């Protein structure tokens, strides 16, 4: 069965003889749309030439004009939409960072990010996954970027440093919030109670391991960035009052479908890290206790308080002994 409409085929036929199969056309079109310098640059790019297996193919050779728009203007609808859509998505994922940097500066970082981290997933939820690591790896660039620093104290490198720290901290917190919000949770699961550990025979307690809830994440930050992230979401944030630069230890989890942030002490954080790594209760406690300046009774009392807090926060699902 022949499907082609002969008149249309003739009308659209190229005078040239370049080979363009569907794959080539798609590679060509994608090269146009994602080109950071626009579709004209896209058309001149190696990528486009390789796609079409031709030394030079103009946009007009590929795309028909309409009555009102040229071939280029029509293709630009897709090119503009590509960046507009993905930048909007990243701004939605990082609202506090957007507010800190201002939309223009945020967009500049996000635009660069998309050059090296285009989406390879069927879901937009994965788009911003590597953004915190991207900012971290561009720390030097961010420090040098005056636009990224409204405080504008160029000589003061420590201010620059803490500014960039805050930026990266915010990115890490906001990404974690997204992942915890839509990841697996404990809403339909029982979690570990203080009694569960008490029920383990004394001689076995040291050998048990605790299984962490799937929604729990630990974050060590250089600032109290979470306060700004939360305030932004509540609409109460102000860039005049930026979070303090101070080592901050966070447990982020989800209770009843809402993301919760728990600030913990350094030793508590360390103990949680060891337990989550799968170390036994005995080994984990011994390691943290060793490094603690506190006397044993005082230290034990504090630890008991932590365990109560963790049970209330539903951080662990169960204890297993083997």
């Amino acid at each position, binding site marked *: 069965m*022949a*499907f*082609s*409409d002969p008149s*249309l*085929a003739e009308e*659209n036929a190229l005078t040239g003889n370049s080979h*363009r*199969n*569907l*794959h080539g*056309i*798609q*590679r060509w*079109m*994608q090269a146009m749309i*994602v080109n950071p310098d626009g579709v004209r640059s896209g058309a001149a790019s190696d990528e486009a030439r390789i796609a079409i297996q031709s030394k030079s193919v103009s946009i007009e*050779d*590929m*795309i*028909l004009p*309409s*009555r*009102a*728009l040229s*071939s280029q*203007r*029509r*293709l630009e*609808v*897709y090119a503009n*939409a*590509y960046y*507009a*859509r993905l930048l*909007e*998505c990243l701004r*939605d*994922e990082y609202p506090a960072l957007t507010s800190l940097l201002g939309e223009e500066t945020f967009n500049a970082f996000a635009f660069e990010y998309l050059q090296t981290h*285009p*989406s*390879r997933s*069927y*879901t*937009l*939820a994965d788009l911003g996954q590597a953004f915190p690591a991207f900012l971290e790896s561009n720390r030097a660039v961010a420090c040098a970027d005056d636009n990224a620093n409204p405080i504008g104290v160029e000589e003061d490198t420590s201010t620059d440093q803490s500014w960039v720290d805050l930026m990266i901290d915010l990115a890490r917190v906001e990404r974690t919030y*997204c992942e915890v*919000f*839509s990841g697996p*949770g404990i*809403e339909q699961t029982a979690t570990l109670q203080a009694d569960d550990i008490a029920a383990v025979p004394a001689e076995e307690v040291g050998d048990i391991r605790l299984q962490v809830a799937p929604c729990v994440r630990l974050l060590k930050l250089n600032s109290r960035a979470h306060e700004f*992230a*939360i305030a932004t*979401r509540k609409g109460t944030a102000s860039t005049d009052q930026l979070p303090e630069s101070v080592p901050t230890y966070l447990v982020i989890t*989800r209770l009843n*479908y*809402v*993301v*919760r*942030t728990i600030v913990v002490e350094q030793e508590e954080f360390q103990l949680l890290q060891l337990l989550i790594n799968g170390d036994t209760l005995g080994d984990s406690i011994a390691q943290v206790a060793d490094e603690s300046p506190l006397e044993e009774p005082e230290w034990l009392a504090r630890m008991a308080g932590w365990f109560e807090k963790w049970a209330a926060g539903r951080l662990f699902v169960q204890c297993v002994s083997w």
Partner: protein
Amino acid sequence: MQEPVPFSTSAPSSPDGIGLGVGLRTVHFAHILKNWPAVDWFEIISENFMNCGGRPRNVLDQIAERYPIVMHGVSMSIGSTDPLNLDYLQKLKQLATETKARWVSDHVCWTGVASKNTHDLLPVPYNEETLRHLVDRIGIVQDILERPLVLENPSTYVTFRDSTMTEWDFIRYLTMETGCQLLLDVNNVYVSSVNHDFDARRYLDSIPVDRVVQFHLAGHTNMGTHCIDTHDGHVVDPVWELFRYAHERGIRASTLLEWDASIPEFDVVHAEVLKAKSWLQTAHALDEPYVINPPSMETAPSRLAGIPQPALYATAEVE
């Protein structure tokens, strides 16, 4: 397992299919859970729920107990020359089973190539090579999903020199060759007819009546020189007129309103789709010349840089 009890035991608002539905959006979650509005059915964006273990999924499960659910995807990329993503298709199938989805739809488009996803619904050139390619892939998808695939005509902004047939012929051949069904987006037909200077009625005349299971209606943005499918407002009269024209051609299908940007309160969205009843009641006298108003080029764009759909992202709830 017990069949879910539909919330509304009355007949659907319209005699066609499962009636008049609304696209499920996160901003309406609280309203729906509180009021259980008398809407006939909900359409979900599949990708928003496929990997989701949080609130959105929990809300969906509650809604799926009370209303018929239809799944609408944006990332199948049926027209791409990249291999089909089998992991994606398995997850899609699993969600369809879990929500008891009435049908599963996506678009006649590709979203990316060379492992990238542009998250846009990009058009394919309409020619025999593309047709063969899509026919093969639709067959594979239907085998995996174990149900007919429902495909939607996208809004498009370019046409290719390599096209040798019209979009409406291409779509008709697809249904003939694969047995796939159609989601006829009347707004997309309109938007594309403006962008590509064709007669929207000619498009509808070519659509096989018995293959259409669903209509989409939505608002768009008139940019003066072209239209963009922004889903950010009311359905314009020329689109309603096209909808009525399709009905007069004998197309009977469940009807859904999409509203994805500047989303108003639920009742406003619901009221918009209910307008379908009055549009169909005031049926056109068949001997009158059928005029569909051309777009007014004076219309100011409602958003200067409208982002074409799909643009979707669920914001985390944080305390």
